């Protein structure tokens, strides 16, 4: 802000979208604005992996593991892949980590910018659509292997419930019911959730269920990190209700993770779902 007179573009009435403004004024600041030729760039940067989310009465919870991989190496053990987008929504990211983090930052700014300019917040669908547009703008990078696939969750004040949206690399947006997952380990996590999830779980139980699911993902997917007891690295868990969003403190998640691991010492495959007829 050291320029002298504020440039005309800043004072021109127009968009309330920060991303649109950035596209017009400083496209170099957009994530993925650098074109890298036609090579497959999939391995040049770390990848984030498994994110899971599920709703409970009155809210939604999103959780992500901490591992980022680069080829067959572990690039980061303590990466954060779940970010609050605003007070009532959050986004978990899988895929090309650097781009994904930039994208989240742009998305956060986008929501806040809209709120400040318009004096009101976007609807939950509005937020989900804006995220679609941002992902779609990353499509050229995705074609070169730098794919970003987020999972978006939020509290919808109109329905008083949590909502979950999944995406594909072209920006396609799909609302999910009850639970969902994204990333390489999500296959296993979703299988686990399918057996453990109930619609009427309370918040604390649902946190445990999501950590079970992440454990199962880490169990079978080498790119997903399990709870790391020796380094005290636990999944990031973010809970959103009518009161707003909060990321659970490490101690809280750690206690649940330790309970899950203790259980697995007895029964490596985890809790058993009841068979039909209750046995």
């Amino acid at each position: 802000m050291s320029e002298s007179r504020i440039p005309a573009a800043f004072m021109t009435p127009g968009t309330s979208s920060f991303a649109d403004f950035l596209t017009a004024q400083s496209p170099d600041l957009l994530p993925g604005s650098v074109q890298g030729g036609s090579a497959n760039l999939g391995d040049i940067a770390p990848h984030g992996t498994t994110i899971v989310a599920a709703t409970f009465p009155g809210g939604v919870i999103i959780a992500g593991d901490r591992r980022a991989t680069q080829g067959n190496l572990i690039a980061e053990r303590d990466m954060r892949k779940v970010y609050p987008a605003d007070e009532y929504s959050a986004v978990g990211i899988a895929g090309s980590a650097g781009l994904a983090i930039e994208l989240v930052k742009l998305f956060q700014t986008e929501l806040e910018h809209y709120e400040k300019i318009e004096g009101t917040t976007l609807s939950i669908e509005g937020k989900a659509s804006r995220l679609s547009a941002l992902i779609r703008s990353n499509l050229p990078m995705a074609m070169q292997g730098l794919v970003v696939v987020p999972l978006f969750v939020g509290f919808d004040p109109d329905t008083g419930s949590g909502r979950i949206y999944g995406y594909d690399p072209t920006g396609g947006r799909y609302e999910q019911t009850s639970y969902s997952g994204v990333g390489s380990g999500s296959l296993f996590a979703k299988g686990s959730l399918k057996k453990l999830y109930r619609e009427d779980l309370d918040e604390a139980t649902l946190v445990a269920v999501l950590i079970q699911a992440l454990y199962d993902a880490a169990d079978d997917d080498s790119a997903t990190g399990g709870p790391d007891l020796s380094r005290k690295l636990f999944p990031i868990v973010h809970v959103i209700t009518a009161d707003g969003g909060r990321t659970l403190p490490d101690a809280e998640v750690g206690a649940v993770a330790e309970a899950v691991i203790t259980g697995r010492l007895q029964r490596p495959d985890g809790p058993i779902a009841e068979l039909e007829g209750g046995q």
Partner: protein
Amino acid sequence: MSTPFYVSPEQLMRDRADFARKGISRGRALVSLQFADGIVFASENPSAALHKVSEIYDRIAFAAVGRYNEFENLRIAGVRLADMRGYAYDRRDVTGRGLANAYAQTLGTIFSSGGEKPYEVELFVGEIGDSAADDQLYRLTYDGQVVDEHGFAAIGGAAEAVGGYLKERYTEGASLEDAIKLAVAALGHTDTDDREIAAKDLEVAVLDRNRTQPRKFRRIRPATLVEILGAVSGTAELEDAKPAAAEKSAAEETATEDSAEKSGEKSADEAPLAPPADDDDGEPPIAPPVD
């Protein structure tokens, strides 16, 4: 062919300043006060949707009087500047001082350029720090002057009367409730009498360093205002089906009445603005918010 004629630069500037002052003085006053936990902004503004006080960034707020479309333009430019800078660098790199400078340059350039009509606006840029000593409050005038204010300040029409009232009564380290009461009493003060302003006609917002979120800006809702103001807004709330609030308020009513005679003498020398020209119904024309 038009006849060339000469106007001295002094005259030109005087005319432009008169023009801007006149526009600003048609509106009502807006005050800004430091209190123990931050800065409070208050103005009389019957519109619930068109704001005079807004959030710019985490710890920075904007408050303005004058022509709505002009200060709205400045506000949006500020939000864009701040968000752009915070996005490109870091949130900590967005400062109130930087923003005030950008506004000052812009207003100054517009004022002294021959081609543009001067902006009929006056504004505050406030930024809170970790303690009251770190708070900053800049007042910017239509010609791009920046004044670093301490404690309190008033802008807009009747700013001298309101500012004089504040000068008599302002104390450092007040609570939010006391600061709001003082601000609202000051807004209702004129040289001849004191008015009570209904809570629904007030716009009050604070930068509150006690907020846990990184974004410290918060609007004070009308219901909260009624609670805080009690006496001042009591009578107006009667018609709003809130008899209880009105009742408890009657006791405090005398607190603000002794002020009328005090402000007259001090207003003449420090007046940045002409006294209100027209009757006080006059906000400048209000445009709908830009898209």
